[in-house]
């Protein structure tokens, strides 16, 4: 019986990918060759299954319930006006990304030769170019936003993608090359609703002494699913600060991967993920130091309520070459219902001997003493719990680029809108 069931599940999964590939339009455009390769890989590679360690807690059923087709968008639903000092690009625009705008000083489009040369380089360096969600994106994306960053870019680059129609897939591909001493702030907004799939693959190469502040706000609704990969290569003395927040997707899987190619760089990662209803939100992060004196400061926070499920796996690799690495990882989780579930796992692989690597994980309910303190000042239990949840979220959300405020992340994540 069990065998028969898993057999039929396998059939469904392979049928899903066959159907998906059949619905795709013929490969074309600047990414034609990449699309061919992605489709070829998908036709050979089975869907991730819970028998694989990396997907142990993550059931793809919400994804296989969808029948998405890539298509450009026609509407911007519920977008706030861009804040001042924000340069916004609509990544699903039917025409080209720029749509007549000229890029701010310090940003320029890569030539197609440069794209050929650079695209996929960082994915490969981060060992994820063959990951299934990456192949899914490569099979479908028809274009890439590929930018060179020189010097300090003043406005925040805001990249928005929205999948608001049933049956659509929005594959977003971004490539950023930060030259030596360049600096950029990027805010990515990923919105999804209905039976849609949002797919993101972003690569960034940070030259020496460059600085990237990156924020990702991924807000879903209903049956919408999100699959994201972020791959970053850091040269020495570069700084990466990446902050992401995710809520509302039936299934959200995000895999940020950072490689410090020669150490000596600074990496700060902050994340907040919320799962309620029947949602599943999963982050698999991985930071690898390939040289000495690298730094990592990672904070991952999650709230699971109702029957929601949160998964975090945080890999940190410190090989022998990475002496004097200073890394810390903290996973803090709030479990708000008896039927919710949280799986959190640090995965530290330390071979170098002269390093400082701290890690910790906590899973708790709202603290009785904190609730009582607020109640003893006249706040109802519900208001007190709300304030504590807000406080828990705010620590991460306030680290997002300032431009994120226009999207009202706290209100949307806590359903106060």
């Amino acid at each position, binding site marked *: 019986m069990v065998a028969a069931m898993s057999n039929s599940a396998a059939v469904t999964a392979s049928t899903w990918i066959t159907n998906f590939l059949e619905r795709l339009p013929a490969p074309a455009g600047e990414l034609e060759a990449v699309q061919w390769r992605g489709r070829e890989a998908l036709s050979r590679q089975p869907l991730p299954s819970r028998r694989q360690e990396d997907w142990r807690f993550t059931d793809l059923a919400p994804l296989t319930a969808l029948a998405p087709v890539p298509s450009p968008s026609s509407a911007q639903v519920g977008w706030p006006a861009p804040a001042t000092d924000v340069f916004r690009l609509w990544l699903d625009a039917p025409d080209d990304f720029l749509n007549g705008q000229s890029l701010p000083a310090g940003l320029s489009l890569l030539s197609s030769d440069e794209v050929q040369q650079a695209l996929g380089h960082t994915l490969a360096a981060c060992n994820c170019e063959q990951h299934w969600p990456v192949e899914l994106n490569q099979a479908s994306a028809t274009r890439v936003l590929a930018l060179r960053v020189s010097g300090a870019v003043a406005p925040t680059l805001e990249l928005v993608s929205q999948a608001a129609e049933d049956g659509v897939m929005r594959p977003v591909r971004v490539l950023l090359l930060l030259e030596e001493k360049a600096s950029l702030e990027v805010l990515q907004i990923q919105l999804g609703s209905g039976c849609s799939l949002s797919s993101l693959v972003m690569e960034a190469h940070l030259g020496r002494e460059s600085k990237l502040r990156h924020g990702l706000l991924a807000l879903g609704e209903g049956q919408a699913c999100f699959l994201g990969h972020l791959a970053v290569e850091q040269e020495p003395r570069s700084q990466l600060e990446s902050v992401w927040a995710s809520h509302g997707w039936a299934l959200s899987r995000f895999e940020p991967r950072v490689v410090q190619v020669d150490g000596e760089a600074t990496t700060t990662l902050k994340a907040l993920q919320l799962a309620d209803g029947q949602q599943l939100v999963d982050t698999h992060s991985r930071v690898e130091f390939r040289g000495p004196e690298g730094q990592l400061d990672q904070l991952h926070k999650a709230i699971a309520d109702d029957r929601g499920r949160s998964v975090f796996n945080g890999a940190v690799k410190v090989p022998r070459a990475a002496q004097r690495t200073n890394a810390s990882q903290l996973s803090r989780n709030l479990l708000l219902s008896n039927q919710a579930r949280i799986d959190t796992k640090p995965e530290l692989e330390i071979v170098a001997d002269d390093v400082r690597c701290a890690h910790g994980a906590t899973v708790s309910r709202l603290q009785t*003493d904190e609730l009582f303190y607020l109640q003893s000042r*006249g706040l109802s239990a519900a208001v007190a719990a709300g304030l504590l949840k*807000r406080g828990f979220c705010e620590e991460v959300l306030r680290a997002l680029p300032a431009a994120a405020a226009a999207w009202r992340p706290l209100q949307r994540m806590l359903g106060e809108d």
Partner: protein
Amino acid sequence: MIRPEADTLLEIVDLQARVEDKPILKGVNLTIKAGEIHAVMGRNGSGKSTLSKVLAGHPAYTVTGGSVRYRGADLLDLEPEQRARLGLFLGFQYPVEIPGVSNLEFLRVSTNARRMEKGEEELDTFAFEDLVRERLQVVQMDPAFLERSVNEGFSGGEKKRNEILQMALLDPLVAILDETDSGLDIDALRIVAGGVNHLASPDNATLLITHYQRLLDVITPDYVHVMAGGRILRTGGKELALELEDRGYDWVDQELAVLEVA
């Protein structure tokens, strides 16, 4: 200030309570009238902190007997937030740190909860800032603390000042201050005590829970109660505190032993 004709604010009769399976309060009797300042003294473990938490409604304590009437109503029937809105205030021995929650926002929400109960209008952000800046002076607190998370990274003295600031904003009828003097240096103690004295009026009452005489050098109590074994063993005027200071708690232990044998 003792006035026989003053209204009774709090009337505790034969109060018994336990935490988990351990009985802590074993029959406390205490009546507090408007205008009075009471001090409850006793050794660690005598039940004085438990008394304060039971009165405020901490969920870890179960009342197993007796009654508490607050201005004629059954206090024990009320949720902690209702007690607070009606004017019962507990200054915590260990104020809780709440990361991510702005102190200013917290103070505003709690002040408004109390104001609504009193039939006063809610204060908007601007009106509240005016009020809070005025009340900050009561405790000589730096306005920078308003911008921080509730009690997060505050020193012991700053936390206690923040408690008295809350008391100044909430305008309670009965303020219970649980070991407000603990962990304070002499300057901070004077500031905190000055705040308590400033807020005391003929219409409200204060219950000080303390270990040491030194708080009572700066706040003069009308009554001093000595607690031991979950009961009030003896009640007197401020001279009782001085007697404790002189003689220590040994005689209390002896009296308690006699009582428990009987």
